[in-house]
């Protein structure tokens, strides 16, 4: 996806969404081609599971078919809207599978060419630590640090004030740094040192 001109990209996305609402099949395929990578990577960053990311990506675009008419360009970009949809689907699935933080399984098996970059030990540890973060810190970090959304866009996706985003990012970074420390404590002990995380219901509301 060309990120050189976000404005024109977003205008194109908006046009495609409008055409999807009008029933243009080709526009749906085009939007999928343009944006499914973003959605897939966001979900993979959140859950650290390729199969999970694949399923959620498919579900997100099915939701797009049903809810394209609800998109409001005044509230943000199509990309941010898609992240919002992906976030809801991801949280729903994590909740159903009771995989909020702990026991997040990493995909095992042979590494293909795309995954070799992730094989670096530090990056792998970092991703594993992110996947074990409380979900409210995890989603803020993934959107802001890994998907490179702005504070305002992150706040829109998370449906919370910018100050809350900043607070969650700070806490998330502190947690991450602690977890990545060589003498890192177990996560359950680390959590108490940065304050109690939000409850799942607050995140999913």
């Amino acid at each position, binding site marked *: 996806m060309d990120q050189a001109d976000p404005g024109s990209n977003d205008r194109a996305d908006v046009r495609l969404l409008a055409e999807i609402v009008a*029933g243009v*099949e080709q526009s*749906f*395929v085009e939007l*999928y*081609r343009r944006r*499914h*990578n973003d959605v*897939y*990577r966001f979900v*993979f*960053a959140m859950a650290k599971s*390729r199969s999970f*990311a*694949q399923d959620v*990506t498919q579900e997100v*675009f*099915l939701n797009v*078919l*049903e809810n394209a008419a609800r998109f409001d360009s005044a509230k943000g970009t199509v990309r941010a809207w898609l992240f919002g949809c992906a976030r809801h689907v991801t949280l729903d699935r994590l909740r159903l599978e009771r995989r909020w933080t702990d026991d997040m399984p990493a995909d095992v098996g042979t590494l293909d060419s*795309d*995954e070799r*970059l*992730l094989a*670096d030990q*530090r*990056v792998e540890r*970092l*991703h594993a630590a*992110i996947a074990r973060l409380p979900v409210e810190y995890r989603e803020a*970090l993934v959107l802001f*640090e*890994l998907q*490179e959304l702005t504070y305002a866009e992150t706040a829109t996706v998370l449906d919370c004030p910018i100050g809350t985003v900043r607070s969650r990012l700070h806490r998330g*970074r*502190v947690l*991450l*740094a*602690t977890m*990545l*420390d060589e003498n890192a404590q177990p996560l359950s002990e680390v959590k108490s*040192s*940065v304050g109690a995380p939000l409850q799942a219901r607050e995140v999913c509301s």
Partner: protein
Amino acid sequence: MSNTPHDASRLQSDLAQLRTALRALEPPEVDEAALRARFREMQQQRAQNAVAERSSRFRLAAAAAVVLALGGILAAVVLRGEHPASVLVPVAAETPVAIPVPVSAFQPLPNSTSLSPSSSYNVVRVRIPLSAFAVVPGTQQGGSIEADLLVGEDGLARAIRFNEAEALLVSVADQ
């Protein structure tokens, strides 16, 4: 907790590496045919839903119209049935009042003009002290008796009737 500047910069560096790695991550190949098939399926389902919604709206409107029509017919029937009844049934029968049943007919009062069927009269219920009558042995002097007076249009009493004596005799204690 160690959150030194060194830790923060290392974390930022690691995050940048992870960001790069994620950018290079390619999702599985898209099955475009399946995607298009799913789109058509959803469009078809949406069209069916729209038809079903229109159909259900029509049925709802039709049902509402039928209910209104039936209500109108029912109201017309009820009103038509009530009107003659109100004409035919005496008012006295519709509003039963616990009035003591008189036991005697009106008796013309002495020195009054005779009653005429063509004239109209008012019935006035009065309570007459027994002292107004000739003393009857065995009666209480402080008692009274109810009677109906037939009063003509000129305001003069023309006839009187006494109600049942046992029921209408009022004791002195009730006064």
